[in-house]
Protein backbone atom coordinates (compact mmCIF):
# COMPACT_ATOMS: atom_id res chain seq x y z
CA UNK A 1 0.00 0.00 0.00
CA UNK A 2 2.71 2.47 1.00
CA UNK A 3 4.86 1.36 -1.93
CA UNK A 4 1.92 1.93 -4.24
CA UNK A 5 1.39 5.46 -2.96
CA UNK A 6 5.09 6.27 -3.24
CA UNK A 7 5.10 4.92 -6.77
CA UNK A 8 2.15 7.11 -7.79
CA UNK A 9 3.80 10.10 -6.13
CA UNK A 10 7.05 9.48 -8.02
CA UNK A 11 5.19 9.12 -11.32
CA UNK A 12 3.34 12.38 -10.63
CA UNK A 13 6.57 14.23 -9.92
CA UNK A 14 8.13 12.76 -13.06
CA UNK A 15 5.17 14.02 -15.10
CA UNK A 16 5.49 17.53 -13.67
CA UNK A 17 9.24 17.50 -14.38
CA UNK A 18 8.58 16.39 -17.98
CA UNK A 19 5.94 19.08 -18.41
CA UNK A 20 8.26 21.75 -17.08
CA UNK A 21 10.92 20.71 -19.61
CA UNK A 22 8.33 20.74 -22.40
CA UNK A 23 7.07 24.18 -21.43
CA UNK A 24 10.61 25.52 -21.25
CA UNK A 25 11.44 24.04 -24.65
CA UNK A 26 8.22 25.41 -26.21
CA UNK A 27 8.87 28.91 -24.90
CA UNK A 28 12.51 28.67 -26.06
CA UNK A 29 11.21 27.91 -29.55
CA UNK A 30 9.05 31.04 -29.62
CA UNK A 31 10.35 33.90 -31.74
CA UNK A 32 11.65 36.72 -29.51
CA UNK A 33 12.65 36.54 -25.86
CA UNK A 34 12.28 38.55 -22.66
CA UNK A 35 14.69 41.19 -23.97
CA UNK A 36 12.91 41.81 -27.25
CA UNK A 37 9.75 42.20 -25.18
CA UNK A 38 11.36 44.71 -22.79
CA UNK A 39 13.21 46.76 -25.40
CA UNK A 40 10.58 46.38 -28.11
CA UNK A 41 11.65 48.58 -31.04
CA UNK A 42 15.12 49.24 -29.60
CA UNK A 43 15.86 45.52 -29.56
CA UNK A 44 18.99 45.38 -31.71
CA UNK A 45 22.77 45.45 -31.54
CA UNK A 46 24.55 46.46 -28.35
CA UNK A 47 21.46 47.20 -26.25
CA UNK A 48 20.00 43.77 -26.95
CA UNK A 49 23.30 42.06 -26.11
CA UNK A 50 23.60 44.03 -22.86
CA UNK A 51 20.07 43.21 -21.82
CA UNK A 52 20.55 39.53 -22.58
CA UNK A 53 23.75 39.43 -20.54
CA UNK A 54 22.03 41.26 -17.67
CA UNK A 55 19.14 38.79 -17.55
CA UNK A 56 21.49 35.87 -18.16
CA UNK A 57 19.66 34.65 -21.24
CA UNK A 58 22.79 34.66 -23.37
CA UNK A 59 23.79 31.40 -21.68
CA UNK A 60 22.91 27.94 -23.03
CA UNK A 61 19.38 26.61 -22.43
CA UNK A 62 20.20 23.70 -20.13
CA UNK A 63 21.75 25.63 -17.18
CA UNK A 64 18.96 28.23 -17.50
CA UNK A 65 16.33 25.50 -17.38
CA UNK A 66 17.87 23.94 -14.28
CA UNK A 67 18.07 27.35 -12.62
CA UNK A 68 14.46 28.10 -13.49
CA UNK A 69 13.26 24.70 -12.28
CA UNK A 70 15.22 25.05 -9.01
CA UNK A 71 13.72 28.51 -8.49
CA UNK A 72 10.21 27.24 -9.21
CA UNK A 73 10.61 24.54 -6.56
CA UNK A 74 11.45 27.25 -4.02
CA UNK A 75 8.48 29.34 -5.15
CA UNK A 76 10.61 31.86 -7.08
CA UNK A 77 9.19 32.09 -10.60
CA UNK A 78 11.39 34.90 -11.87
CA UNK A 79 10.31 38.39 -12.93
CA UNK A 80 7.81 39.55 -15.53
CA UNK A 81 9.37 40.74 -18.78
CA UNK A 82 6.58 43.26 -19.01
CA UNK A 83 6.98 45.29 -15.82
CA UNK A 84 9.87 43.66 -13.96
CA UNK A 85 7.74 42.71 -10.95
CA UNK A 86 8.22 39.28 -9.34
CA UNK A 87 5.92 36.76 -10.99
CA UNK A 88 5.02 35.04 -7.73
CA UNK A 89 3.14 38.16 -6.53
CA UNK A 90 1.61 38.89 -9.95
CA UNK A 91 0.43 35.31 -10.37
CA UNK A 92 -0.47 34.96 -6.69
CA UNK A 93 -3.42 37.39 -6.85
CA UNK A 94 -4.75 35.85 -10.05
CA UNK A 95 -4.33 32.32 -8.76
CA UNK A 96 -6.32 33.28 -5.69
CA UNK A 97 -9.11 34.69 -7.88
CA UNK A 98 -9.18 31.62 -10.11
CA UNK A 99 -9.28 29.36 -7.06
CA UNK A 100 -12.18 31.43 -5.70
CA UNK A 101 -14.08 30.95 -8.96
CA UNK A 102 -13.23 27.24 -9.12
CA UNK A 103 -14.12 26.67 -5.46
CA UNK A 104 -17.50 28.40 -5.83
CA UNK A 105 -18.28 26.35 -8.95
CA UNK A 106 -17.23 23.10 -7.27
CA UNK A 107 -19.18 23.87 -4.10
CA UNK A 108 -22.28 24.42 -6.22
CA UNK A 109 -21.67 21.80 -8.89
CA UNK A 110 -20.48 18.69 -7.06
CA UNK A 111 -23.43 18.28 -4.63
CA UNK A 112 -25.84 19.21 -7.42
CA UNK A 113 -24.30 16.68 -9.81
CA UNK A 114 -24.23 13.87 -7.25
CA UNK A 115 -27.80 14.56 -6.15
CA UNK A 116 -29.17 14.71 -9.68
CA UNK A 117 -27.04 11.74 -10.74
CA UNK A 118 -28.50 9.58 -7.97
CA UNK A 119 -32.01 10.80 -8.74
CA UNK A 120 -31.76 10.08 -12.48
CA UNK A 121 -30.01 6.77 -11.87
CA UNK A 122 -32.67 5.52 -9.47
CA UNK A 123 -35.55 6.74 -11.63
CA UNK A 124 -34.08 5.64 -14.91
CA UNK A 125 -36.12 6.62 -18.00
CA UNK A 126 -38.54 8.62 -15.87
CA UNK A 127 -39.62 12.09 -16.97
CA UNK A 128 -37.01 13.78 -14.76
CA UNK A 129 -34.27 11.49 -16.09
CA UNK A 130 -35.10 12.22 -19.71
CA UNK A 131 -35.28 15.98 -19.12
CA UNK A 132 -32.04 16.09 -17.12
CA UNK A 133 -30.16 13.77 -19.46
CA UNK A 134 -31.11 15.91 -22.44
CA UNK A 135 -30.01 19.06 -20.63
CA UNK A 136 -26.75 17.25 -19.83
CA UNK A 137 -25.93 16.74 -23.50
CA UNK A 138 -26.43 20.45 -24.14
CA UNK A 139 -24.31 21.48 -21.17
CA UNK A 140 -21.50 19.10 -22.10
CA UNK A 141 -21.23 19.95 -25.75
CA UNK A 142 -21.98 23.65 -26.22
CA UNK A 143 -18.72 25.64 -26.08
CA UNK A 144 -18.32 27.70 -22.90
CA UNK A 145 -18.14 30.99 -24.78
CA UNK A 146 -21.49 30.26 -26.44
CA UNK A 147 -23.32 29.41 -23.21
CA UNK A 148 -21.65 32.39 -21.56
CA UNK A 149 -22.87 34.70 -24.32
CA UNK A 150 -26.41 33.35 -24.09
CA UNK A 151 -26.44 33.69 -20.28
CA UNK A 152 -25.16 37.27 -20.47
CA UNK A 153 -27.90 38.07 -22.94
CA UNK A 154 -30.66 36.54 -20.83
CA UNK A 155 -29.64 37.39 -17.27
CA UNK A 156 -27.68 40.56 -17.65
CA UNK A 157 -29.09 42.39 -20.69
CA UNK A 158 -32.65 41.10 -20.89
CA UNK A 159 -33.53 40.55 -17.24
CA UNK A 160 -30.83 42.77 -15.75
CA UNK A 161 -30.37 40.57 -12.68
CA UNK A 162 -26.57 40.27 -12.57
CA UNK A 163 -23.69 42.12 -14.24
CA UNK A 164 -22.34 40.49 -17.40
CA UNK A 165 -18.78 41.55 -16.77
CA UNK A 166 -16.40 41.71 -13.80
CA UNK A 167 -14.88 45.14 -13.22
CA UNK A 168 -12.89 44.47 -10.02
CA UNK A 169 -9.10 44.52 -10.36
CA UNK A 170 -6.91 41.47 -9.71
CA UNK A 171 -5.85 42.53 -6.21
CA UNK A 172 -9.37 43.29 -4.94
CA UNK A 173 -10.66 41.33 -1.94
CA UNK A 174 -12.88 38.34 -2.66
CA UNK A 175 -16.04 40.26 -1.75
CA UNK A 176 -15.48 42.65 -4.66
CA UNK A 177 -16.15 39.85 -7.15
CA UNK A 178 -19.76 39.40 -6.09
CA UNK A 179 -22.19 39.57 -7.86
CA UNK A 180 -20.09 39.60 -11.05
CA UNK A 181 -18.78 36.10 -10.28
CA UNK A 182 -22.27 34.58 -10.50
CA UNK A 183 -22.48 34.14 -14.28
CA UNK A 184 -18.96 32.74 -14.83
CA UNK A 185 -19.67 30.40 -11.92
CA UNK A 186 -22.92 29.24 -13.51
CA UNK A 187 -21.21 28.54 -16.86
CA UNK A 188 -18.48 26.44 -15.22
CA UNK A 189 -20.98 24.69 -12.95
CA UNK A 190 -23.18 23.68 -15.88
CA UNK A 191 -20.41 21.86 -17.72
CA UNK A 192 -18.98 20.33 -14.57
CA UNK A 193 -22.34 19.14 -13.31
CA UNK A 194 -23.08 17.49 -16.64
CA UNK A 195 -19.87 15.44 -16.65
CA UNK A 196 -20.10 14.29 -13.03
CA UNK A 197 -23.86 13.64 -13.24
CA UNK A 198 -23.41 11.35 -16.23
CA UNK A 199 -20.90 9.18 -14.41
CA UNK A 200 -22.89 9.01 -11.17
CA UNK A 201 -26.05 8.11 -13.10
CA UNK A 202 -24.49 5.28 -15.09
CA UNK A 203 -22.70 3.92 -12.05
CA UNK A 204 -25.92 3.93 -9.98
CA UNK A 205 -27.63 2.05 -12.81
CA UNK A 206 -24.78 -0.44 -12.97
CA UNK A 207 -24.79 -1.08 -9.21
CA UNK A 208 -28.60 -1.44 -9.16
CA UNK A 209 -28.27 -4.29 -11.67
CA UNK A 210 -25.53 -6.06 -9.72
CA UNK A 211 -26.02 -9.41 -8.03
CA UNK A 212 -25.62 -8.18 -4.46
CA UNK A 213 -28.26 -5.49 -4.91
CA UNK A 214 -30.61 -8.00 -6.51
CA UNK A 215 -29.90 -10.29 -3.56
CA UNK A 216 -30.65 -7.50 -1.10
CA UNK A 217 -33.93 -6.79 -2.87
CA UNK A 218 -34.86 -10.48 -2.69
CA UNK A 219 -33.97 -10.54 0.99
CA UNK A 220 -36.49 -7.75 1.47
CA UNK A 221 -34.13 -4.95 2.49
CA UNK A 222 -36.19 -1.74 2.75
CA UNK A 223 -35.71 0.60 -0.24
CA UNK A 224 -34.28 3.43 1.81
CA UNK A 225 -31.68 1.18 3.42
CA UNK A 226 -30.98 -0.49 0.09
CA UNK A 227 -30.12 2.83 -1.53
CA UNK A 228 -28.15 4.28 1.36
CA UNK A 229 -26.19 1.19 2.41
CA UNK A 230 -25.91 -0.99 -0.69
CA UNK A 231 -26.09 1.25 -3.73
CA UNK A 232 -24.59 4.64 -2.92
CA UNK A 233 -21.23 3.70 -1.34
CA UNK A 234 -20.34 1.62 -4.39
CA UNK A 235 -21.86 3.94 -6.95
CA UNK A 236 -20.08 7.06 -5.70
CA UNK A 237 -16.52 5.71 -5.88
CA UNK A 238 -16.13 6.30 -9.64
CA UNK A 239 -17.34 9.86 -9.07
CA UNK A 240 -14.09 10.70 -7.29
CA UNK A 241 -12.01 10.19 -10.41
CA UNK A 242 -14.47 12.07 -12.58
CA UNK A 243 -14.48 14.98 -10.15
CA UNK A 244 -10.68 15.05 -10.43
CA UNK A 245 -10.85 14.96 -14.23
CA UNK A 246 -13.46 17.69 -14.12
CA UNK A 247 -11.27 19.93 -11.98
CA UNK A 248 -8.53 19.38 -14.53
CA UNK A 249 -10.96 20.35 -17.28
CA UNK A 250 -11.92 23.38 -15.21
CA UNK A 251 -8.36 24.68 -15.59
CA UNK A 252 -8.74 24.88 -19.36
CA UNK A 253 -12.38 25.92 -19.45
CA UNK A 254 -11.72 28.64 -16.94
CA UNK A 255 -9.38 30.36 -19.43
CA UNK A 256 -12.15 31.04 -21.93
CA UNK A 257 -14.73 31.84 -19.26
CA UNK A 258 -12.42 34.30 -17.52
CA UNK A 259 -11.74 36.03 -20.82
CA UNK A 260 -15.45 36.28 -21.68
CA UNK A 261 -16.36 37.81 -18.34
CA UNK A 262 -13.12 39.79 -17.98
CA UNK A 263 -12.55 37.97 -14.69
CA UNK A 264 -9.04 38.78 -13.41
CA UNK A 265 -7.85 35.21 -12.93
CA UNK A 266 -4.96 33.05 -14.06
CA UNK A 267 -6.47 32.17 -17.45
CA UNK A 268 -7.22 35.73 -18.44
CA UNK A 269 -3.70 36.70 -17.37
CA UNK A 270 -2.24 33.87 -19.44
CA UNK A 271 -3.95 35.07 -22.62
CA UNK A 272 -2.78 38.63 -21.98
CA UNK A 273 0.76 37.41 -21.31
CA UNK A 274 0.78 35.42 -24.53
CA UNK A 275 -0.38 38.49 -26.48
CA UNK A 276 2.29 40.61 -24.72
CA UNK A 277 4.92 37.89 -25.19
CA UNK A 278 5.64 38.00 -21.49
CA UNK A 279 7.32 34.62 -21.70
CA UNK A 280 8.46 34.16 -18.07
CA UNK A 281 4.84 34.66 -16.98
CA UNK A 282 3.55 32.19 -19.59
CA UNK A 283 6.06 29.61 -18.38
CA UNK A 284 5.07 30.14 -14.76
CA UNK A 285 1.32 29.87 -15.40
CA UNK A 286 1.73 26.78 -17.56
CA UNK A 287 3.78 25.13 -14.83
CA UNK A 288 1.21 25.98 -12.15
CA UNK A 289 -1.69 24.63 -14.25
CA UNK A 290 0.18 21.40 -14.98
CA UNK A 291 1.16 20.92 -11.33
CA UNK A 292 -2.44 21.44 -10.21
CA UNK A 293 -3.64 18.94 -12.80
CA UNK A 294 -1.19 16.27 -11.73
CA UNK A 295 -1.81 16.99 -8.04
CA UNK A 296 -5.58 16.70 -8.37
CA UNK A 297 -5.36 13.41 -10.23
CA UNK A 298 -2.91 12.09 -7.69
CA UNK A 299 -5.18 13.08 -4.82
CA UNK A 300 -8.13 11.38 -6.51
CA UNK A 301 -6.18 8.17 -7.02
CA UNK A 302 -5.06 8.11 -3.40
CA UNK A 303 -8.55 8.85 -2.10
CA UNK A 304 -9.87 6.09 -4.32
CA UNK A 305 -7.28 3.66 -2.97
CA UNK A 306 -8.05 4.61 0.63
CA UNK A 307 -11.83 4.32 0.25
CA UNK A 308 -11.94 1.16 -1.80
CA UNK A 309 -10.19 -1.90 -0.43
CA UNK A 310 -10.18 -3.49 -3.88
CA UNK A 311 -8.16 -0.62 -5.35
CA UNK A 312 -5.29 -1.26 -2.97
CA UNK A 313 -4.04 -4.23 -4.90
CA UNK A 314 -5.74 -3.93 -8.28
CA UNK A 315 -4.65 -0.46 -9.27
CA UNK A 316 -0.91 -0.94 -9.10
CA UNK A 317 -0.47 -0.85 -12.88
CA UNK A 318 -3.74 0.72 -13.88
CA UNK A 319 -2.50 4.04 -15.29
Amino acid at each position, binding site marked *: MLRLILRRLALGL*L*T*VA*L*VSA*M*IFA*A*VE*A*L*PGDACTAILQRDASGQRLDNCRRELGIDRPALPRYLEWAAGAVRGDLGVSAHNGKPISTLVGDRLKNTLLLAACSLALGVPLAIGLGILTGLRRDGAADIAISTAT*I*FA*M*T*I*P*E*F*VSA*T*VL*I*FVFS*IWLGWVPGIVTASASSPASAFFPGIVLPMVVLTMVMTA*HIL*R*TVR*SSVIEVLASDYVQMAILKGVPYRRLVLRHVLPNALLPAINVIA*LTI*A*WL*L*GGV*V*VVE*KVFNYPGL*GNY*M*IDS*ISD*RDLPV*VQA*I*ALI*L*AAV*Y*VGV*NLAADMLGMLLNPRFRTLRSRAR
Partner: protein
Amino acid sequence: MSMTGRLGATLRGMIARPSGAIGVALVAAHVVLALVSPWIAPYDFKAVSAAMILDPPNAAHWLGTDQLGRDVLTRTIMGGRQAMLVTLIATPVAVAWGGMLGIHLGLVGGRLDDVVMRIVDAFLSLPWILKMLLMIVTFGAGIGVLVPVLAFFYGIPVIRIARAATHGVVARDFVLAARARGHGRFSIIRRELLPNVLDALLVEGAMRWSWMLLAFSSLSFLGFGVSPPTPDWGLMIADARSFMAIAPWAGFAPVLALSSLIIGINLAADALAKTLGVDRAAASAH
Protein backbone atom coordinates in the same frame (compact mmCIF):
# COMPACT_ATOMS: atom_id res chain seq x y z
CA MET B 1 -19.69 -8.48 -44.96
CA SER B 2 -18.38 -6.06 -47.57
CA MET B 3 -17.11 -2.64 -46.51
CA THR B 4 -20.02 -0.73 -48.06
CA GLY B 5 -22.50 -3.24 -46.68
CA ARG B 6 -21.14 -2.75 -43.20
CA LEU B 7 -21.17 1.04 -43.60
CA GLY B 8 -24.82 0.92 -44.66
CA ALA B 9 -25.74 -1.37 -41.76
CA THR B 10 -24.01 0.95 -39.28
CA LEU B 11 -25.76 4.00 -40.67
CA ARG B 12 -29.14 2.22 -40.53
CA GLY B 13 -28.41 1.26 -36.94
CA MET B 14 -27.66 4.88 -36.06
CA ILE B 15 -30.78 6.24 -37.75
CA ALA B 16 -32.95 3.63 -36.02
CA ARG B 17 -32.60 5.64 -32.79
CA PRO B 18 -34.51 8.95 -32.80
CA SER B 19 -31.58 10.86 -31.28
CA GLY B 20 -29.22 9.25 -33.77
CA ALA B 21 -31.47 10.21 -36.66
CA ILE B 22 -31.56 13.83 -35.46
CA GLY B 23 -27.78 13.83 -35.06
CA VAL B 24 -27.08 12.37 -38.49
CA ALA B 25 -29.57 14.78 -40.09
CA LEU B 26 -28.00 17.83 -38.38
CA VAL B 27 -24.46 16.81 -39.37
CA ALA B 28 -25.49 16.02 -42.95
CA ALA B 29 -27.33 19.34 -43.27
CA HIS B 30 -24.30 21.25 -42.01
CA VAL B 31 -21.90 19.45 -44.33
CA VAL B 32 -24.14 20.07 -47.35
CA LEU B 33 -24.60 23.72 -46.35
CA ALA B 34 -20.86 24.20 -45.97
CA LEU B 35 -20.34 22.77 -49.46
CA VAL B 36 -23.02 24.73 -51.31
CA SER B 37 -23.28 27.96 -49.28
CA PRO B 38 -21.08 30.11 -51.58
CA TRP B 39 -23.58 29.46 -54.38
CA ILE B 40 -26.80 29.90 -52.44
CA ALA B 41 -25.74 32.81 -50.22
CA PRO B 42 -28.00 35.78 -50.98
CA TYR B 43 -25.24 38.41 -50.61
CA ASP B 44 -21.47 38.83 -50.72
CA PHE B 45 -20.17 37.90 -47.27
CA LYS B 46 -17.81 40.88 -47.14
CA ALA B 47 -20.10 43.52 -48.69
CA VAL B 48 -20.34 46.28 -46.09
CA SER B 49 -23.00 48.97 -46.11
CA ALA B 50 -23.01 52.10 -43.98
CA ALA B 51 -26.74 52.54 -44.63
CA MET B 52 -27.73 49.21 -43.09
CA ILE B 53 -25.72 48.95 -39.88
CA LEU B 54 -27.36 46.59 -37.33
CA ASP B 55 -30.67 46.50 -39.20
CA PRO B 56 -33.18 44.14 -37.58
CA PRO B 57 -34.41 41.15 -39.63
CA ASN B 58 -36.45 42.33 -42.65
CA ALA B 59 -37.58 41.16 -46.08
CA ALA B 60 -34.23 41.88 -47.76
CA HIS B 61 -32.07 40.61 -44.90
CA TRP B 62 -33.93 37.74 -43.23
CA LEU B 63 -31.60 37.60 -40.24
CA GLY B 64 -30.71 41.31 -40.17
CA THR B 65 -27.30 42.90 -40.64
CA ASP B 66 -24.20 43.16 -38.44
CA GLN B 67 -22.18 46.13 -37.17
CA LEU B 68 -20.70 46.72 -40.64
CA GLY B 69 -24.00 46.30 -42.46
CA ARG B 70 -23.15 42.79 -43.70
CA ASP B 71 -25.90 40.23 -44.23
CA VAL B 72 -26.10 37.93 -41.16
CA LEU B 73 -27.80 35.08 -43.08
CA THR B 74 -25.00 34.98 -45.66
CA ARG B 75 -22.30 35.06 -43.03
CA THR B 76 -24.02 32.42 -40.88
CA ILE B 77 -24.47 29.84 -43.64
CA MET B 78 -20.85 30.40 -44.72
CA GLY B 79 -19.53 30.72 -41.17
CA GLY B 80 -18.88 27.01 -40.69
CA ARG B 81 -16.77 26.48 -43.81
CA GLN B 82 -13.40 27.28 -42.27
CA ALA B 83 -14.15 25.29 -39.12
CA MET B 84 -15.37 22.29 -41.14
CA LEU B 85 -12.45 22.39 -43.56
CA VAL B 86 -9.86 22.51 -40.77
CA THR B 87 -11.48 19.91 -38.51
CA LEU B 88 -12.43 17.50 -41.29
CA ILE B 89 -8.80 17.36 -42.41
CA ALA B 90 -7.32 17.31 -38.91
CA THR B 91 -9.65 14.66 -37.43
CA PRO B 92 -8.72 11.74 -39.74
CA VAL B 93 -5.04 12.64 -39.45
CA ALA B 94 -5.26 12.71 -35.64
CA VAL B 95 -7.10 9.40 -35.46
CA ALA B 96 -4.72 7.80 -37.96
CA TRP B 97 -1.42 8.68 -36.30
CA GLY B 98 -2.68 8.37 -32.73
CA GLY B 99 -4.41 5.10 -33.58
CA MET B 100 -1.41 3.52 -35.31
CA LEU B 101 0.98 4.54 -32.54
CA GLY B 102 -1.45 3.34 -29.85
CA ILE B 103 -1.97 -0.06 -31.50
CA HIS B 104 1.77 -0.43 -31.93
CA LEU B 105 2.43 0.39 -28.26
CA GLY B 106 -0.32 -1.96 -27.16
CA LEU B 107 1.23 -4.77 -29.15
CA VAL B 108 4.89 -4.16 -28.39
CA GLY B 109 4.76 -2.85 -24.82
CA GLY B 110 8.03 -2.73 -22.90
CA ARG B 111 10.36 0.22 -22.51
CA LEU B 112 9.07 2.13 -25.56
CA ASP B 113 5.52 1.88 -24.21
CA ASP B 114 6.57 3.23 -20.79
CA VAL B 115 8.45 6.18 -22.25
CA VAL B 116 5.76 7.20 -24.75
CA MET B 117 2.95 6.90 -22.18
CA ARG B 118 4.88 9.19 -19.78
CA ILE B 119 5.13 11.78 -22.57
CA VAL B 120 1.43 11.33 -23.36
CA ASP B 121 0.58 11.93 -19.68
CA ALA B 122 2.74 15.05 -19.66
CA PHE B 123 0.98 16.42 -22.75
CA LEU B 124 -2.46 15.63 -21.35
CA SER B 125 -1.67 17.46 -18.11
CA LEU B 126 -1.59 20.80 -19.90
CA PRO B 127 -4.92 22.50 -20.62
CA TRP B 128 -5.72 22.29 -24.35
CA ILE B 129 -5.98 26.02 -24.71
CA LEU B 130 -2.48 26.60 -23.35
CA LYS B 131 -1.00 24.13 -25.83
CA MET B 132 -2.91 25.67 -28.73
CA LEU B 133 -2.04 29.24 -27.81
CA LEU B 134 1.68 28.46 -27.43
CA MET B 135 1.68 26.93 -30.92
CA ILE B 136 -0.22 29.86 -32.40
CA VAL B 137 2.22 32.34 -30.85
CA THR B 138 5.12 30.33 -32.26
CA PHE B 139 3.86 29.61 -35.76
CA GLY B 140 1.16 32.23 -36.26
CA ALA B 141 -2.59 31.78 -36.75
CA GLY B 142 -4.34 30.63 -39.92
CA ILE B 143 -5.47 27.34 -41.39
CA GLY B 144 -1.97 26.24 -42.44
CA VAL B 145 -0.98 26.22 -38.77
CA LEU B 146 -4.24 25.09 -37.18
CA VAL B 147 -4.59 21.88 -39.21
CA PRO B 148 -1.26 20.31 -38.18
CA VAL B 149 -1.49 21.67 -34.62
CA LEU B 150 -5.00 20.27 -34.07
CA ALA B 151 -4.07 17.00 -35.79
CA PHE B 152 -1.06 16.65 -33.50
CA PHE B 153 -2.60 17.53 -30.13
CA TYR B 154 -5.91 15.75 -30.69
CA GLY B 155 -4.08 12.61 -31.79
CA ILE B 156 -2.45 12.27 -28.38
CA PRO B 157 -5.54 11.10 -26.44
CA VAL B 158 -6.26 8.70 -29.32
CA ILE B 159 -3.00 6.91 -28.48
CA ARG B 160 -4.45 6.00 -25.09
CA ILE B 161 -7.76 4.77 -26.50
CA ALA B 162 -6.12 2.70 -29.23
CA ARG B 163 -3.59 1.24 -26.78
CA ALA B 164 -6.31 0.25 -24.31
CA ALA B 165 -8.45 -1.26 -27.08
CA THR B 166 -5.43 -3.21 -28.33
CA HIS B 167 -4.73 -4.56 -24.84
CA GLY B 168 -8.26 -5.93 -24.95
CA VAL B 169 -7.55 -8.16 -27.98
CA VAL B 170 -3.80 -8.70 -28.02
CA ALA B 171 -3.90 -11.75 -25.74
CA ARG B 172 -6.77 -13.42 -27.59
CA ASP B 173 -6.33 -16.70 -29.40
CA PHE B 174 -6.48 -15.38 -32.96
CA VAL B 175 -3.59 -12.99 -32.31
CA LEU B 176 -1.57 -15.76 -30.69
CA ALA B 177 -2.38 -17.98 -33.66
CA ALA B 178 -1.16 -15.33 -36.09
CA ARG B 179 2.03 -15.04 -34.10
CA ALA B 180 2.45 -18.80 -34.09
CA ARG B 181 1.96 -18.82 -37.87
CA GLY B 182 4.96 -16.52 -37.98
CA HIS B 183 3.23 -13.34 -39.14
CA GLY B 184 5.24 -10.15 -38.79
CA ARG B 185 4.29 -7.25 -36.56
CA PHE B 186 2.71 -5.17 -39.32
CA SER B 187 0.75 -8.08 -40.69
CA ILE B 188 -0.67 -8.73 -37.19
CA ILE B 189 -1.55 -5.04 -36.78
CA ARG B 190 -3.22 -4.81 -40.17
CA ARG B 191 -5.05 -8.12 -40.24
CA GLU B 192 -5.76 -8.97 -36.60
CA LEU B 193 -5.63 -5.83 -34.45
CA LEU B 194 -6.85 -2.98 -36.68
CA PRO B 195 -10.21 -4.60 -37.59
CA ASN B 196 -10.91 -5.11 -33.88
CA VAL B 197 -9.82 -1.66 -32.75
CA LEU B 198 -11.45 0.18 -35.65
CA ASP B 199 -14.85 0.59 -33.99
CA ALA B 200 -13.35 2.26 -30.93
CA LEU B 201 -11.30 4.51 -33.20
CA LEU B 202 -14.36 5.54 -35.23
CA VAL B 203 -16.27 6.56 -32.10
CA GLU B 204 -13.19 8.34 -30.78
CA GLY B 205 -12.84 10.13 -34.12
CA ALA B 206 -16.39 11.46 -33.90
CA MET B 207 -15.67 12.74 -30.40
CA ARG B 208 -12.36 14.29 -31.51
CA TRP B 209 -14.20 16.09 -34.31
CA SER B 210 -16.57 17.68 -31.83
CA TRP B 211 -13.73 18.69 -29.47
CA MET B 212 -11.78 20.15 -32.38
CA LEU B 213 -14.72 22.24 -33.51
CA LEU B 214 -15.06 23.49 -29.96
CA ALA B 215 -11.35 24.37 -29.84
CA PHE B 216 -11.37 25.99 -33.26
CA SER B 217 -14.38 28.20 -32.59
CA SER B 218 -13.12 29.10 -29.10
CA LEU B 219 -9.81 30.22 -30.61
CA SER B 220 -11.65 32.24 -33.24
CA PHE B 221 -13.75 33.78 -30.51
CA LEU B 222 -10.62 34.78 -28.58
CA GLY B 223 -9.15 36.33 -31.72
CA PHE B 224 -6.50 33.65 -32.34
CA GLY B 225 -8.20 31.80 -35.17
CA VAL B 226 -9.79 32.92 -38.43
CA SER B 227 -8.98 36.50 -39.39
CA PRO B 228 -11.65 38.95 -40.56
CA PRO B 229 -13.46 39.45 -42.90
CA THR B 230 -13.72 35.66 -43.35
CA PRO B 231 -17.09 34.63 -41.89
CA ASP B 232 -16.70 32.36 -38.88
CA TRP B 233 -19.16 31.57 -36.09
CA GLY B 234 -16.70 32.11 -33.24
CA LEU B 235 -15.60 35.42 -34.66
CA MET B 236 -19.20 36.49 -35.38
CA ILE B 237 -20.25 35.74 -31.79
CA ALA B 238 -17.27 37.72 -30.49
CA ASP B 239 -18.24 40.69 -32.68
CA ALA B 240 -21.92 40.47 -31.81
CA ARG B 241 -21.27 40.51 -28.06
CA SER B 242 -20.59 44.23 -28.08
CA PHE B 243 -23.97 44.93 -29.66
CA MET B 244 -25.98 42.30 -27.84
CA ALA B 245 -28.18 44.84 -26.11
CA ILE B 246 -29.25 46.63 -29.31
CA ALA B 247 -28.88 43.91 -31.98
CA PRO B 248 -29.24 40.41 -30.53
CA TRP B 249 -29.95 38.93 -34.00
CA ALA B 250 -26.31 39.35 -35.06
CA GLY B 251 -25.23 36.82 -32.42
CA PHE B 252 -28.33 34.64 -32.34
CA ALA B 253 -27.81 32.99 -35.73
CA PRO B 254 -24.15 31.94 -35.30
CA VAL B 255 -24.88 30.68 -31.74
CA LEU B 256 -27.65 28.49 -33.12
CA ALA B 257 -25.56 27.28 -36.07
CA LEU B 258 -22.51 26.31 -34.01
CA SER B 259 -24.59 24.70 -31.24
CA SER B 260 -26.68 22.66 -33.67
CA LEU B 261 -23.59 21.27 -35.41
CA ILE B 262 -21.82 20.30 -32.18
CA ILE B 263 -24.94 18.75 -30.67
CA GLY B 264 -25.57 16.94 -33.94
CA ILE B 265 -22.08 15.44 -33.90
CA ASN B 266 -22.49 14.33 -30.29
CA LEU B 267 -25.88 12.73 -30.88
CA ALA B 268 -24.50 10.95 -33.95
CA ALA B 269 -21.39 9.84 -32.02
CA ASP B 270 -23.59 8.49 -29.23
CA ALA B 271 -25.67 6.54 -31.71
CA LEU B 272 -22.52 5.29 -33.46
CA ALA B 273 -21.09 4.08 -30.14
CA LYS B 274 -24.31 2.23 -29.29
CA THR B 275 -24.62 0.71 -32.76
CA LEU B 276 -21.04 -0.53 -32.75
CA GLY B 277 -21.21 -1.57 -29.10
CA VAL B 278 -18.33 0.67 -28.01
CA ASP B 279 -18.23 1.88 -24.41
CA ARG B 280 -18.25 5.65 -24.83
CA ALA B 281 -17.28 6.31 -21.23
CA ALA B 282 -13.77 5.25 -22.21
CA ALA B 283 -13.74 7.84 -24.95
CA SER B 284 -15.10 10.80 -23.04
CA ALA B 285 -11.94 12.18 -21.43
CA HIS B 286 -10.40 15.03 -23.34
